[in-house]
């Protein structure tokens, strides 16, 4: 009589299965199906730039009434799609990209010493400000590259550069850089002073071939008065700049760069 145990065990399994399926339909937890839709629309990078711990949590927050334009990764497209799903209006934020305010690769600066430690900008910069002669410039160990979830940063010859087509504007690299030379810039603004040094012109000129020496030529040249000298280097006010390119022609050290997006 081998059938009796088989019948008992399978019968019990059947009964439990029926009870469970009844209970699960009876006590079903209704999840707002918009959460699922919003979650699908979000990029899924889980970068945390919106201020929530991940795309899942932000999707939940959106459905519970949070702003829909907090995700810098998705950009204006995402906001339009989210406003379709949620039926609310939101002004699309300006697309921001990260830009490294330094152009001092190894051929332009002097190398003070051979750094042989951990490959990390923070670690390298604790040693006499890093191997580069300019202590304000890029350390070139690629800490920003490591935190970039979008593979938008390349580090070549001791200089990090950002592919602005790939950059989503999450700002992780800005927070990571120990020299604080990565800045968030509206992507429409094409010209930037690729230098952050705070030394006097003579010193910075000696440290780096493409340093801003605060000669003020661009300040005088700019028709929109968008350029000013802050901390011994020129800074372009992106809200005033109209991308005319007058400044780049007069810069004696080629410290002003035109950024066209792709590296």
């Amino acid at each position, binding site marked *: 009589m081998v059938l009796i145990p088989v019948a*008992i*065990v399978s019968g*019990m*399994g059947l009964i439990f299965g029926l*009870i*469970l399926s009844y209970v699960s339909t009876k*006590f079903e937890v209704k999840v707002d199906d918009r959460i699922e839709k919003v979650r699908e629309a979000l990029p899924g990078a889980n970068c945390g730039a919106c201020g929530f711990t991940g795309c899942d949590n932000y999707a939940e927050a959106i459905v519970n009434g949070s702003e829909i334009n907090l995700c810098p990764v998705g950009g204006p497209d995402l906001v339009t799609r989210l406003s379709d799903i949620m039926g609310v209006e939101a002004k699309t934020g300006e697309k921001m990209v990260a830009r490294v305010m330094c152009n001092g690769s190894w051929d332009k600066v002097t190398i003070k010493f051979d750094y042989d430690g951990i490959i990390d900008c923070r670690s390298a910069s604790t040693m006499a400000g890093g191997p580069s002669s300019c202590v304000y410039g890029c350390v070139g160990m690629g800490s920003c590259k490591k935190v970039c979830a979008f593979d938008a940063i390349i580090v070549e010859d001791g200089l990090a550069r950002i592919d602005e087509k790939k950059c989503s504007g999450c700002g992780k690299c800005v927070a990571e850089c120990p020299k604080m030379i990565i800045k968030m810039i509206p992507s429409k603004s094409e010209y930037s002073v690729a230098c952050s040094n705070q030394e006097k012109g003579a010193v910075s000129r000696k440290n780096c071939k493409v340093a801003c020496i605060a000669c003020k030529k661009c300040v005088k040249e700019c028709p929109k008065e968008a350029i000013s000298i802050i901390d011994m280097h020129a800074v372009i006010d992106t809200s005033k700049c109209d991308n005319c390119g007058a400044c780049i022609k007069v810069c004696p050290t080629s410290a002003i760069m035109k950024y066209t997006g792709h590296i």
Partner: protein
Amino acid sequence: MKEIILIAIAAVFVENFVLSKFLGICPFLGVSKKTSTAVGMGGAIVFVITISSVVTWSVNEYLLKPYELIYLQTIVFILVIAALVQLVETVLKKFMPALYRALGIYLPLITTNCAVLGSALLIAEREYTLLNAVVFGFSSAVGFTLALLLFSGVRERIETNDVPMAFRGLPITLIAAALVSVAFIGFQGLFGI
């Protein structure tokens, strides 16, 4: 009546599942970080063990014994417990979502918790009556909760203390667990049980 009281006291203190029989150590170490989750886990365990002792006792008495299928005890009990845990999970998700999230992975883990299966098997082995079985199941779960609660208190205090580097984390937790367990040896031989 005296028998029931003795069973209850024995199950809570003398034969404490965690600290004397060393059953259900996984949630004991896993959920005891915070008192609030320990209470939640304890509640879930009490519920599951009490119901499972009724169901497994009936299954054992009316199905397994008459057909001489005692050898199927383990697999049948696991089936019952798994279904019960699933039921508890569905109900918790509906009515206490906060507790559901707090318990997290440990709720499904009750399925394979040896304390639950252990209590079912012990009840069958000792041939308790239904009332005794329920009392035993309930009080051993209460004993489990007590151990979990006491230990979470200990762990919360350890958290704020300056533990030597090498002992931080799991090592000091295991040492503390051993000491709490030693304390429960003091109940050994209580009332001649």
